[in-house]
């Protein structure tokens, strides 16, 4: 990993207040993100995996400040993202962008493709004339594998995979350094997923992009990521280089997660680690280590002390009292 990470997240927290009662008092809190820290180096891809409710999507949005975090720090290229406001924040938006999961809801159905992709260029005054805008849009369309004449069409005329490409073109328009991919292929058919994954990899090589790849599909994440972070109930439980995580997972949750992934090969027989029960409610997370209620190796003090994320092997961090 290079010297200075492009993105540095320190102890990010986001608690949602639930209002209840007659006077809309704060009754409970949802601990969606409960102290998340990681770094991403330039041109790296960090995969962020976890099951529903673990807080990975919220983390992505907090980094962009689409949701305001409750506390914590985010540093992009040495700049303090949390302190920025107004026009500083707006110009920061050029450096980090996001692509969304739902290809149908992420494009304004009333705008042409040209307007959707070109909007960023207009907001940041990156073009001086309509002609220049069109030229840039055409180039972006070609970069993502679409035709120039597509720019006059509307989103509903395209398939899911094509819409995702439009979303990618939109994000690339501002030439960002960091691209947060929030489940970008989950809603697509398997054969289209491969197309989009290949496209993302090509773009990364072409433009030196850095990705935070958020997904729940471990196979996809493993394929595209340099390093992977596993989240459970608002916390990061393990971070490791992609191959190391899958070959030698240290955290019991990671082990269980990996063993649950179905392998498309009937000749491979594996021992499956079955977790009992369901994911606990993020409103009342278990005390101490959040995973102790389902953990096969949990012991008494796991409920008392929060485990810290420690580097147990070179580049391999685990948050567990008894592993590593």
């Amino acid at each position, binding site marked *: 990993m290079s010297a200075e990470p492009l993105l540095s997240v320190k102890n990010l927290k986001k608690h949602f207040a639930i209002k209840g009662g007659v006077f809309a008092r704060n009754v409970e809190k949802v601990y969606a993100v409960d102290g998340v820290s990681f770094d991403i180096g330039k041109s790296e891809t960090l995969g962020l995996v976890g099951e529903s409710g673990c807080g990975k999507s919220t983390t992505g949005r907090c980094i962009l400040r689409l949701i305001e975090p409750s506390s914590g720090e985010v540093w992009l290229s040495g700049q303090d993202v949390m302190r920025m406001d107004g026009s500083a924040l707006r110009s920061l938006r050029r450096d980090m962008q996001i692509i969304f999961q739902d290809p149908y809801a*992420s494009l*304004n159905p009333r705008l042409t493709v040209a307007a959707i992709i070109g909007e960023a260029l207009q907001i940041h005054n990156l073009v001086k004339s309509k002609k220049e805008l069109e030229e840039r849009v055409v180039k972006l369309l070609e970069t993502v594998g679409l035709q120039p004449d597509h720019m006059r069409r509307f989103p509903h005329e395209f398939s899911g995979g094509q819409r995702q490409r439009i*979303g990618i073109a939109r994000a690339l328009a501002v030439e960002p350094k960091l691209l947060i991919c929030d489940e970008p292929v989950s809603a697509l058919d398997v054969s289209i997923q491969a197309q989009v994954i290949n496209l993302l990899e090509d773009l990364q090589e072409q433009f030196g992009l850095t990705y935070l790849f958020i997904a729940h599909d471990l196979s996809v994440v493993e394929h595209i990521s340099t390093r992977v972070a596993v989240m459970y109930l608002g916390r990061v439980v393990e971070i490791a280089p992609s191959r190391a995580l899958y070959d030698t997972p240290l955290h019991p949750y990671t082990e269980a997660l990996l063993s649950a992934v179905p392998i498309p090969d009937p000749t491979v027989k594996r021992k499956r680690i079955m977790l009992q029960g369901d994911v606990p409610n993020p409103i009342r997370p278990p005390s101490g280590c959040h995973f102790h209620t389902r953990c096969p190796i949990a012991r008494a003090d796991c409920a008392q002390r929060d485990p810290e994320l420690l580097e147990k092997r070179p580049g391999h961090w685990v948050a567990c009292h008894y592993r590593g």
Partner: protein
Amino acid sequence: MASAVILLLIVLAVLIGPYVWRVPINEIDFASKLDGPSWTHPLGTDDLGQDILARLLYGGRISLAVGLCAMLVAAIVGVMVGAIAGMSRGGIDAALMWLADLFLSLPQLPLLLLISYLFRDALTKLIGTQGGIFLIVVLVIGGLRWMQVARLVRAQILSIREKEFIEAARALGASSIRQVVRHILPNALGPVIVAGTIDVANAIIAESTLSFLGLGFPPDIPTWGRVLFDAKDTIDIAPHWAIFAGSAIFLTVLTINFIGDGLRDALDPRRVL
């Protein structure tokens, strides 16, 4: 689209008609009172021998104008209130919706009566009879219809706000105003347009009702409702009078409603036109 043509004809008729059909609206001619349609009086005459066609053409302007203006008042106030409520959260939203609920519980007719009674004279002195009444009628009808529009706009905005393309716009650096104007409102206004056209229809009917009850414009002004009001007493011997007046209202309202539907569909980019 037939509706558009018919409505256009109606509008043209009331705008230009009185210049073409130069029969005066209040030429009293007892000799030919309550006559059915004839060449001199294509829609017949009323009980004072006045030409019904001329009266309908002239009064139509007022009825249509009231309908349109009331709708505009309701739409503008409604969109603004709904947009503010939908975009802000918590206190402002709650306060505005409470206000809407308040207005919804006001009875339209008695209120119109009351305001008319209180302000008619003052306004008449300021802008003349017609103007004064016009203003009162438009403001009250429009002022009591903005709530539905506001609710509709607010509901639309709340649902569109959550959509990812709005988040995408924010992520690109769009200001709140840009998000609302360029992204949210165009997607929110579809149902509002339909509601708007229904409002025109409702306003015309409301004005007709008021005039029918004798509460709107003074009796010599032949708004369609007024004409209907006058016609009701002689329905058995001169049905043509009521029928023509009623048909004018009916036809106008119907065509406006169809146009509203058509507009909403036409503005939906998903349709291949």
